[in-house]
């Protein structure tokens, strides 16, 4: 099993550009999550999904959108990139009955 994979690993965006961060898991997990980690801070939940077709906002959803058309994939969309979105983004997944989250390696995004 590859676990949770994320692409790209790094990206530099100009203000106002858009991009999609990809996340795929091969563990057949129901739940998936997107977190961001700013320097010196903990991970903050952006969006999560409890199954295909079902998504909900986390703590810091503004400026982002998600979709969950399959169990495996949970892409995160930035529509109009802003410098405040410079961060490291982590995707995670878990079983519904297991609260342990399995994390991907992260995407480091810089918006200038």
């Amino acid at each position, binding site marked *: 099993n590859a676990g949770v994979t994320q692409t790209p690993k790094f990206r530099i965006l100009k203000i106002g550009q858009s991009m999609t961060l990809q996340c795929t898991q091969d563990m057949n997990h129901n*739940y998936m999550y997107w977190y961001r980690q700013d320097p010196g801070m*903990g*991970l903050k939940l952006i969006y999560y999904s409890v199954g295909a077709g079902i998504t909900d906002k986390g703590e810091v959803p503004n400026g982002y959108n998600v979709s969950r058309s399959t169990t495996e994939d949970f892409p995160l969309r930035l529509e109009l990139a802003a410098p405040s979105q410079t961060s490291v983004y*982590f995707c995670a997944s878990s079983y519904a009955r297991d*609260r342990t*989250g399995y994390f991907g390696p*992260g995407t480091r995004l810089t918006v200038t």
Partner: protein
Amino acid sequence: DQQVKQNSPSLSVQEGRISILNCDYTNSMFDYFLWYKKYPAEGPTFLISISSIKDKNEDGRFTVFLNKSAKHLSLHIVPSQPGDSAVYFCAAGGLTGGGNKLTFGTGTQLKVEL
């Protein structure tokens, strides 16, 4: 409003000694607590967890203690090894909504010196 707090940003310990990492929480709805370890340029990896019905959980060199009345948990690593040098995040989850969502602390950088 930081619901999970790790007040020590860094900790330095000698190899072979005990490392104690602390975490405090404010939300009494949390009923499940986890510790994650993170190396640079990698995602967090799960280390150990504890349910609120227990006050201790052990896994090899790692032990987590939970004091519900004080809303405090700690991670003990004995003996500490150089490979334990990483950032440790405390996380909490519970009856705060669906989806097994976790709230993370800001992390403690552990350095184990030879």
